[in-house]
């Protein structure tokens, strides 16, 4: 198909937004164009982390001289003609946006020749202005040179990260495409030095080395399964090889790199019980399916897709992963046991302390056996929830002295009190403990602990705005956070109470917080923030607690003002009275 301008009604159906955010986006678009052009060799040269030069040379089909000027127009594409095509996209590009967007923020040179024309043509554009177009000699294929990127948008320039980071983003990006197209020879030069070179011989494992390092690449297991019209292939790590983050999990749909939380979740499900809490596998998964089974037109930079039958995709992925793991791993569960085995690895976030102010046993009111504190939504406050007063039998929310008996399902503690059995949700209980400590510290100033190295947190523009508005509140809570370029914040200190949690996580949870809660009231806002932070920092279900840790948690809970609910209002404990036990066991007649 020749290049043409899309009719307005088609153009308007294409997910719109910013195409070029950073040098890596330029590389992505140019590489995709070369791949769409059927190139078998792609040479990428980067200078000055892409800001000075991005050059991509391919040996693909080339652009006819008479169409060269059209290629840099907005909505000009050879890959799509009518709206219906949008549901059957077989190419990486389809918007006709990339070259136009790149051309408007740089000095662009485009040289191209098709195999069956004698001479090629050369086009020069500066900041979106077409300067000249003339015949030129060139080998078959296309060369695109992008110089002085963002020279006319200084705001963008300021938002770029360090050169090292931008370079790394480009490296990562090219590796990911190389992995998807092992039959294409990729060569990447950074400042004239080779950064990546693939053979084009179709060997994926050789490219895995560039993605994960030799040791991890060697260990990766192969996934290969076919489910109807869908094929799932690629590589996953054995359960013994994990990371503390998901960033080494990559997905491709019809060889297009995509981001999809739900796909990650399905992959993780495939590892069910084989991974420790907080550990994630590595993976590079290729999903191939008929183009009409997936909508790629949902995200301005084509980073996301929508499946027509998502459940089916997820289920297929999960079972493909499971199968690969079972085939290769002789002793599933090793990884878990290995960490369980050594009791001292877990952070002991609640160091036990003796608190003389526990209520005495007599103070504890007799209670009916039932799930207590069922309120779905009591107000968040340090004082006993209103429910206490509506129940005359419950003058005090406090709990009695509890003796730990053990842990159930790595999530609940069983404890004995003066009147029967208590089942305690360890996560909810710890949330409550942290929450009340925060509130108690607020009057005298919340201690904050500086970090050895500030942690950089990258946020979306919207999240960044939310966070920027809340910096003073955060400071009063012990977070020392400062803006560091667009969408980036540096965390310099975190509340001492959270010293056991990851600073990046702690900040992230705050942004999620702002999105959901829109309470204008400052005080309430602050408590909600605290509640959110505590939720993230509290010990998780799935963490094995030593007897010592169980005891410490119970001590701390006993000391709370409102120990029976977590700050979000869910119960922290269920009480089964001796009376109830007796009746259930038939030792006592029903009343």
């Amino acid at each position, binding site marked *: 198909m020749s290049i043409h301008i899309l009719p307005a009604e088609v153009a308007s159906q294409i997910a719109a937004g910013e195409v070029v955010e950073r040098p890596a986006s330029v590389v992505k678009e140019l590489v995709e164009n070369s791949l769409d052009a059927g190139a078998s060799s792609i040479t990428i040269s980067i200078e000055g982390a892409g800001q000075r030069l991005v050059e991509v040379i391919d040996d693909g089909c080339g652009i006819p001289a008479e169409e060269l000027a059209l290629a840099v127009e907005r909505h000009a594409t050879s890959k799509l003609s009518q709206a219906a095509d949008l549901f059957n996209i077989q190419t990486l590009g389809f918007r006709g946006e990339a070259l136009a967007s790149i051309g408007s923020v740089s000095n662009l040179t485009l040289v191209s020749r098709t195999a069956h024309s004698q001479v090629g043509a050369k086009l020069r554009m500066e900041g979106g202005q077409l300067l000249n177009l003339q015949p030129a000699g060139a080998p078959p294929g296309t060369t695109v040179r992008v110089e002085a990127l963002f020279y006319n948008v200084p705001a963008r320039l300021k938002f770029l990260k360090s050169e090292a980071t931008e370079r790394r983003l480009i490296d990562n990006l090219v590796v990911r495409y190389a992995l998807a197209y092992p039959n294409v020879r990729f060569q990447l030069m950074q400042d004239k030095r080779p950064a990546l070179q693939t053979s084009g011989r179709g060997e994926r494992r050789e490219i895995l080395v560039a993605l994960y390092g030799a040791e991890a690449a060697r260990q990766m297991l192969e996934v290969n399964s076919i489910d109807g019209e869908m094929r799932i292939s690629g590589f996953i790590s054995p359960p013994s090889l994990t990371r503390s983050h998901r960033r080494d999990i990559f997905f491709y749909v019809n060889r297009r790199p995509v981001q999809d939380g739900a796909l990650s979740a399905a992959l993780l499900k495939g590892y069910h019980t084989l991974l420790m809490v907080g550990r994630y596998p590595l993976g590079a998964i290729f999903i191939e399916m008929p183009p009409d089974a997936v909508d790629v037109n949902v995200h301005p930079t084509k980073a996301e897709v929508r499946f027509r039958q998502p459940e089916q995709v997820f289920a297929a992925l999960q079972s493909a992963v499971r199968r690969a793991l079972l085939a290769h791993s002789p002793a599933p569960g090793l990884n878990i046991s290995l960490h369980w085995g050594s009791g001292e690895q877990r952070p002991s976030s609640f160091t036990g302390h003796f608190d003389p102010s526990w209520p005495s046993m007599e103070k504890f009111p007799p209670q009916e056996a039932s799930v207590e504190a069922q309120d779905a939504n009591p107000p968040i406050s340090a004082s006993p929830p209103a429910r206490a007063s509506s129940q005359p039998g419950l003058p005090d929310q406090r709990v009695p002295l509890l003796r730990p008996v053990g842990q159930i399902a790595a999530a609940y503690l069983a404890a004995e009190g003066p009147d029967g059995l208590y089942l305690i949700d360890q996560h909810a209980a710890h949330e409550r403990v942290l929450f009340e400590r925060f509130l108690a510290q607020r009057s005298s100033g919340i*201690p904050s602990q500086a970090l050895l*190295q500030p942690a950089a947190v990258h946020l979306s523009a919207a999240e960044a705005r939310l966070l920027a508005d809340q910096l003073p509140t955060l400071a009063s809570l012990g977070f020392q956070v400062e803006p560091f370029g667009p969408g980036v914040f540096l965390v310099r200190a975190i509340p001492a*109470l959270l010293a056991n949690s990851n600073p990046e996580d702690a900040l992230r949870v705050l942004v999620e917080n702002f999105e959901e809660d829109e309470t204008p009231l400052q005080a309430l806002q602050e408590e909600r923030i605290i509640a959110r932070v505590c939720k993230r920092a509290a010990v998780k279900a799935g963490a094995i607690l030593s007897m010592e840790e169980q005891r410490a948690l119970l001590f701390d809970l006993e000391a709370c003002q409102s120990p029976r609910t977590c700050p979000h209002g869910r119960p922290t404990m269920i009480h089964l009275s001796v009376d109830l036990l007796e009746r259930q066991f038939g030792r006592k007649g029903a009343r």
Partner: protein
Amino acid sequence: MRVSVLQENLARGLSIVSRAVSPRSTLPVLANVLVATDEGRLRLSATNLELGITCWIGAKIQDEGSTTVPARTFSDLVATLPGGNQVEMSLTVRTQTLNVRCGASNTDLKCIDAQEFPPMPVSDVSQGLELNVMDFKEMIQQVVFAASTDDARPILTGVLVTVKGDTITLAAADGFRLSVRKARLSSPVARPLSAVIPARALSELARIASDGDKTLTMITPPGRAQVIFRVGDVELVSQLIDGMFPDYEQIIPRRCDTRAVLSTSAFLKACKQAEIFAREGSHIAKLNIQPGGELKPGVVEITGQSEETGSNQNIVDANIEGPGLLIAFNVRFLREVLDVIRTPNVALETTANNLPGVIRPVESQDDQSEFLHVIMPMHLGS
């Protein structure tokens, strides 16, 4: 297998290797100790796949063989056998039953076939790096406590060990503090080395290495992501931690404005007291560094305070250069580092209440300070 060993030797060997047993593993054989004849001696090994410990003990071997014995039961049993006696063990291979006789005691233990035990690497000690046990033990103790216990950042649960030229350096950090200890080697190494070893493995090593042993050999077999330590009759194998250790050099402050030199023991005692009162959640203690004048000496005032318990204040005399400063630290961190400083005096170097503090032992002139500890301050929000 038919062997006999002295009760004391067996008991000691079991107590050493049983630290690597993982009783709660889903792989039952990991709760066992491998007992095998090995070139005229008896080899005991245990592993949790991350850490493995082997100990060789003298034995009279009648028949060669091997099996794996439930660690807990075996240790408990051997501990109660009469000292000074020979423990006779014989294995019935078909039923994997180990008969243990000693004095009047006669026991049959159900074992698991040695085939199921994970293979443990065999090391070539001649390729290793020789270290002085006592020195290395002290080095370990001076850094391991600063390693993180949080699995969220696995790399920080390790200790970075680098060997270059004739210097060995150990470094550990947990996000809030950094401990670095260097030492000279008797001779320079040919091949530089850099490895992140789990802090837990080093702690075990420090525990195992006793005063009687003179040298310790460290081996990093190429391409195996493992480190092996050999000390006397004991060998400890640990997986290395994969990843990039943070570049800690850049964290170490180059200069300071205020330098206070205090008695290590007085400072430690003050911190211990303050810690009792600084417990609630955050461990915050305030240090008021006050330079002296013409007549009065400089002092550091250490305060721990808690809403519920009360407050405590201690004044420690100090030799102070530079301006005064009020700064707060996690007192547990202070206590932990002071606990591993052996010199009578210690220097606390600070510049501002939001910049890192550095603690170094104050050595005599010719003994250059090879240890330093960086602690990030705390702050009381408004």
